[in-house]
């Protein structure tokens, strides 16, 4: 059965036993896959069928999935989405900076850093606890109302500040978990080379923490993209608000669906790219056939 010694690498041919096994495995895999696919489709089909054949389906379809309405509302919603994107990009950069600072402060040790640590903890606790909408109200309306010299009254400025403050509290926790997941011996190795605390942090700890926090960061980026619309309460129109305006014309909810599809078109490629990036950066994964 087994091949002759010496020709293994080039001319190996499976033995009969092995061919039997391979055949059996192939059939079983096919069958199981077919069952899995079939039952999945069946389930989806059943749900879909129940929805489509339900007494209210026609009305729902008209209200939520009207093609004409989708086409006519598309430009307005897309226009609103542009605001979401700009706010998201600018805020995301600021959020990364602020949250990284807070996270680093929270991982400092020693009595010297105590007041800073306290401040960082208080910040995270408060801004994570406060509903974003409230922060936007307080800053977006209260901020300009203070009439402080030198500060703009633009709703984008104050709304953006609220987003940054609120999100940074969350993202700081993500970074902190990442920093704490880097093994202490890496920090020691850096210090033993003569690198200072800051250099070690910058060149040794953070680059490693960075890869590990990509998936949760992605979660936060996706939700920022959507929450960026909340500053619509300050009077600027994002995709959802535009959809609402379109909806008010004839009480057809399709524009919301258009907005949803547009959001998905942004987030899904983003998620796929991050996944690939994270995997390339060495996520091993405990998943496996065994």
């Amino acid at each position, binding site marked *: *059965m*087994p*091949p002759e*010694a010496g020709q*293994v*690498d080039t001319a*190996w041919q*499976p*033995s009969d*036993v*092995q061919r039997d*096994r391979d055949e*059996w*495995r192939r059939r*079983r895999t096919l069958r199981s896959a077919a069952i899995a696919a079939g039952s999945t489709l069946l389930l989806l089909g059943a749900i879909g069928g129940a929805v489509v054949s339900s007494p209210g389906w026609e009305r729902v379809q008209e209200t939520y999935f009207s093609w004409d309405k989708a086409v006519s509302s598309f430009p307005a919603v897309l226009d609103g989405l542009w605001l979401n994107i700009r706010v998201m990009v600018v805020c995301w950069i600021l959020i990364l900076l602020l949250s990284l600072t807070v996270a680093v402060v929270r991982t400092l040790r020693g009595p010297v850093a105590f007041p800073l640590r306290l401040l960082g903890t208080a910040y995270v606790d408060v801004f994570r606890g406060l509903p974003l909408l409230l922060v936007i109200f307080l800053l977006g309306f209260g901020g300009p109302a203070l009439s402080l010299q030198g500060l703009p009254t633009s709703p984008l400025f104050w709304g953006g500040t609220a987003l940054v403050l609120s999100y940074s509290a969350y993202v700081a926790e993500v970074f902190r978990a990442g920093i704490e997941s880097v093994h202490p011996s890496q920090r020691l190795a850096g210090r033993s080379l003569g690198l200072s605390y800051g250099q070690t942090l910058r060149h040794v700890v953070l680059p490693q923490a960075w890869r590990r926090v990509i998936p949760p960061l992605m979660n936060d980026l996706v939700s920022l993209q959507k929450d960026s619309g909340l500053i619509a309460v300050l009077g600027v129109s994002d995709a959802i608000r535009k959809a609402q305006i379109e909806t008010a014309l004839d009480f057809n909810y399709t524009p919301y669906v258009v907005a949803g599809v547009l959001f998905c078109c942004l987030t899904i490629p983003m998620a796929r790219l991050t996944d690939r990036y994270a995997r390339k950066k060495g996520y091993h994964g405990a998943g496996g056939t*065994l």
Partner: protein
Amino acid sequence: MNTPRRSSPPLRSSEQRRGDPVPTELLRLDGVRKSFGDNVVLSDVDLTVEPGQCVVLIGASGSGKSTLLRCVNLLEVVDDGVITFDGRDITDPRVDGDEIRSRMGMVFQAYNLFPHLDVIGNVTLALRLVHGVKADEARSRGLAMLERVGLAEKATARPDDLSGGQQQRVAIARALVANPRLMLLDEVTSALDPELVGEVLDLLTELKGEGVTMLLNTHEMGFARDVADRVCFLHDGRIHEQGTPDQVIGDPQQERTRAFLSRIRY
């Protein structure tokens, strides 16, 4: 350490097979081949282990020793060849791998204890889940086994709080507690401090004295010499030389074996 092995409950598989003629060998590999992608790690490996024997694999890093043990434990699917365990072709895909694995005990290089369970939890997990032993009985059997490896008083410690040698002894106890027919030991001392190596090797020597069948690989030539019934030298996925320790280590016939042995200096 003084609980004799034979006083343990009778082995499950020997009960099942009562009446059949007992095969002379417990484990038999015929023309086993295994590759990862283009990398052929094992090819044309023939090997037998008789009950009560201790077979030791030696060979350079990357020669495929661990892969061989993993194939026997069905943690890898072979590309070709037949592995017969206890009279049954376990490379047949229709075989229930979990059941086969539950009748072998495997100990890994880096000890792989479960950090979230305490020592007794590690030792009794498979007893409770796989062998259907009640919690009480599992506990007492686990404690007896810990007693045997000299760690009864560490039953409630966390693995992280143990020294490497202690961890490895727990790992051996965990593998041994369900009375496996065959113990597979993958370089069980290579991650240990040299002075802790002794305690683990002592334990293995003792097990061998009690008649436990073992297939293991090690870099400790002295130990291989002391306990092995048979030594197999692996090189590039093939068995190049096998025989008694005195033959293979003391008087190697093959050029490659000699080269390998000479590189292990200190």
